[in-house]
């Protein structure tokens, strides 16, 4: 548990920094608003107007999220295997290769079906 103390300290520090800087800004800064300031912040680019009535996002987002989840879960299994690799030896390697090859089929399928192309 003690190994988490530095992380907790770091978390507390960053929280404190965020609170202090936002608070200081709110207390001391001038408050003059214009249209550009009130717009949604999109990294300095002009915000893309939303379609009237809310609009519907392309279903591609869903596919991207699913892809992310599935390969995320794969990584999660890779991690304990890697940590314990020395003891697992060839058997572990073979099983992990089987696991990855199966998911490689998924990857091949997604790629060939254009799931990796945005447009």
């Amino acid at each position, binding site marked *: 548990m003690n190994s988490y103390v530095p992380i907790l300290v770091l978390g507390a520090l960053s929280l404190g920094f965020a609170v202090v800087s936002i608070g200081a800004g709110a207390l001391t800064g001038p408050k003059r608003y214009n249209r550009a300031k009130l717009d949604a912040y999109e990294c300095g680019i002009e915000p893309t107007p939303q379609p009237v009535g809310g609009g519907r996002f392309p279903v591609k987002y869903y596919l991207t999220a699913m892809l992310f989840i599935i390969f995320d879960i794969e990584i999660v299994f890779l991690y304990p295997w890697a940590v314990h690799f020395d*003891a*697992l*030896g060839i058997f572990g390697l073979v099983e992990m290769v089987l696991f990855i090859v*199966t998911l490689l*089929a998924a990857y*091949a*399928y997604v*790629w*060939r079906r254009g799931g990796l192309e945005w447009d």
Partner: protein
Amino acid sequence: MSALSVSATFAAAEFQTPSIEYSKLMPMLIVFGVALVGVLIEAFMGRTGRHQVQLILSIAGLVAAFVSVTMLAGDNQIAAVGAVAVDGPALFLQGTILLLAIPGVLTMAERSLDRGGVFTSAGSSTPGSEHERVLTATGVTQTEVFPLTMFAVGGMLLFPAANDLLTMFVALEVLSLPLYLLCGLARRRRLLSQEASLKYFLLGAFSSAFFLYGIALLYGYSGTVRLSGIAEAVSSNSGSDTLLMTGTALLAVGLLFKVGAAPFHSWTPDVYQGAPTPITGFMAACTKVAAFGALLRVLYVGLGGLAWQWEPVMWGVAILTMVVGSVVALTQTDVKRMLAYSSIAHAGFILTGLVATDTVDPDTGAVLGVSSVLFYLLAYGFITIGAFAVVTLVRDAGGEATHLSQWAGLARRSPLVAAVFTLFLAAFAGIPLTSGFTGKFAVFSAAIAGDAAPLVVIGVVMSAVAAFFYFRVVVLMFFNAPAPDGPAVAVPSPLTTVAITLSVAVTVLLGVWPTQVLDLADRASQFVR
């Protein structure tokens, strides 16, 4: 605390390479391998000919897997580090599932009834939109259904063979996930199909959560998820009874949901009605076989020592299921919904056989509760797949005509189809010389041997009620005048014809000459522990 001693073994420094007996897992390996190859075909093969290749591959895989099951016959051991039991009930049910999947896949591959087949190629196109209209007109075939079906079959093979609850849970998910999807891919009546898919998914996920919580509590009770370990803890009476009872109840809820037993049946009619009909047939037959297999194994192997506790509950569930299925079916006006309620009622009949624990046939040494259920599942599966295959043939301009009034006078349009459907209905009702009669006889006599005579009385009464609505349909088909703009009976390709013929043959054969299969079920009725 026993849970701790188990986790302590995780930390053992020396790692011994586990041995996996691949030859004992051959049926599953074949089916999963075919699914994997199917995915690669989807990825790398052009559209032309993909349908034929997938169909041939799937059927060949199912046949090969069945052959490997027959080669394993007589085995009685636990494989894959205790995860899989290779024993009589597991092999019998795996064989049954593979045999049922063959006509299932054949009906799914049917393309001459509906242009491009029963599955839509774009599940997300909005029902009623221009996109959908164009898709329907072009008739693009959906071929991913083959690998998805093979995944489901693989999960079903593992489900009744799983010897620990963790493997069982993974198998449950592998069999369910493709089915949730397949339910939503109907080409016609898309909204109904999507609704069915969503309902099945939400309720299925909910029941999986129950199942998982049950596993957690049973692990808390016994410190292991192996069925043998749980059985040991039950017999040595260690641990807290509260955990055991709650865990058992939650686990049973998850399994009874998949079986479609009341009061966890409410998804069945909606899902059976909305799903593409070949999927309904496949799901109704194969999922029930797999889920009853798992239920048998959990109750007999893991919780056998607790039988005096769960038997009364199963009595109640069986009675409720039979009554709800048979009585509510009377009011149905849609063929698919009627068959759905009939499948609920049949789950109840099977449960009456299941409660006959510890009743061993003195002559053959067969465990009657197991062998009767095994036989019933085989008989019921083929009747169901055949009946739903017949439903796909009665069509009008909007697709399948499933309202019962549209079936009036069907015998005038096609005496053959009406006769075949009558045979299946008679088998559902349990008329002698059909497989349904033999099955009902088996489970009811098992129940009588297990001192459950009241259950049998209710079963017989409910069979009579059920027979009433089956014969109402027969009367409708043979003695009513057809509506002038009624549906026509489509002529299917050899695929559906073969599937229906196979179902008819098994239904008649198991009714007239069931001895061989009954003997096989008797010999296969011993669980490995």
